[in-house]
C-alpha cells in the first residue's frame, strides 16, 4: 500500500483514489505461521474430522474404541470407516479403524456366525499391507472368542488389550 508522511511525520496510508485509510496494524504486525504450526493445525483438523466420523457412525462401539485409542495414543488413528481397495476381491472394502500398523474391526454382534470369512479377508488385506489385524467384539460369548483365537484370529473383548497391541506394534 502506498504511504506518505503526514503532518506529524507519521506514516499515513492512502488508497488508489487518494483517500486516507486507517493503518491495519493486524496486517502490519502479521507473522505468518511457521511450518510446525501449519502441520499441527492440519493434524488437529484431521483429528477433528475423524472424531466427527466416529461420533456420527451408527456402529455401536466404534466411538468408544476410537476415544480410548486417542486418549492412550493421540494422533495414531489414521482412518475411521474408510474404504480401501482390496486387490484380492478387486474392489473396495470398508475398515472400521486404521492406524499406522493396525487394522481394528469393531463387532457389536453377539453371535459369531459369518464372521470367520470376514476376518479371513480382512486379515489377508492387513498382511498384504504389513499391518496387524485386531477384532474388538465385546458382546461375543467367551467360548466363541476362544474358538476364533484357536483359528488364529486376534480377537478380544477388552479395549486395554487392543491398546497394548497397538503400542507393541507402533511404539
Amino acid at each position: 500500500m502506498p504511504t506518505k508522511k503526514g503532518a506529524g511525520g507519521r506514516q499515513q496510508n492512502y488508497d488508489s483514489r487518494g483517500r486516507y485509510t486507517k493503518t491495519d496494524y493486524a496486517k502490519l504486525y502479521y507473522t505468518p505461521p511457521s511450518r510446525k504450526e501449519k502441520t499441527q493445525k492440519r493434524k488437529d483438523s484431521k483429528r477433528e474430522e475423524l472424531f466427527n466420523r466416529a461420533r456420527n457412525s451408527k456402529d455401536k462401539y466404534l466411538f468408544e474404541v476410537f476415544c480410548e485409542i486417542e486418549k492412550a495414543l493421540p494422533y495414531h488413528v489414521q482412518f475411521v470407516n474408510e474404504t480401501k481397495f482390496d486387490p484380492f476381491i478387486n474392489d473396495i472394502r470398508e475398515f472400521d479403524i486404521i492406524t499406522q500398523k493396525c487394522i481394528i474391526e469393531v463387532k457389536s454382534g453377539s453371535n459369531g456366525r459369518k464372521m470367520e470369512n470376514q476376518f479371513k479377508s480382512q486379515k489377508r488385506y492387513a498382511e498384504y499391507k504389513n499391518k496387524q489385524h485386531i477384532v474388538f467384539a465385546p458382546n461375543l460369548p467367551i467360548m466363541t472368542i476362544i474358538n476364533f483365537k484357536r483359528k488364529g484370529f486376534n480377537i478380544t473383548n477388552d479395549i486395554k488389550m487392543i491398546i497394548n497391541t497397538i503400542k507393541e506394534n507402533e511404539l
Partner: protein
Amino acid sequence: MRDIILYTKNPINYDECVKNILEKVKSATTNSKNYFHSNNKHFWCLDIDNEDLESSLLGFDVNYVEEQKQLLIKNVPIENPISNLLQTHRSIDAKRIIEVLMKLYPELYIEVNDAEIWFGSAQEYLDMEFDY
C-alpha cells in the same frame, strides 16, 4: 457395520441378481464376480458366498456347533439354509436390497446380528423400524 445374514433355500445366483440389484438400487456397483457394494458415502456391501451350515462351522468346538444348529432350527424355518452376508450402516439400504432379493427368493429369512439377535422373514424386516 451391522451384519445382516440372509437365509435362502437355494444358493443366490449372482447372474440372476445382478441386473435387478443394479437397476433398482441406485447406489449399487459390483465387481462382476460375487460382491456388491455402494458407490456413495453410506457404505454397504453384499458378499455372495452361499455358505451352508456345515461348512461355516468347520473347525469349531462341538458345543459351539451344536449351539448354532439349535439356534437355526429354532428360529429359521428353512431346512439346511444357505447363508449370505449383507453389511450396512443404515437399515434403509438393507431394506432396498432385501426388497429386490425377496422377489427372486420369496422364502428369504433374515438374521440381524447385533447385541440382541433378531430373526424374522424378509417382509417382517421391511415392516419393522430399526434405530439405525
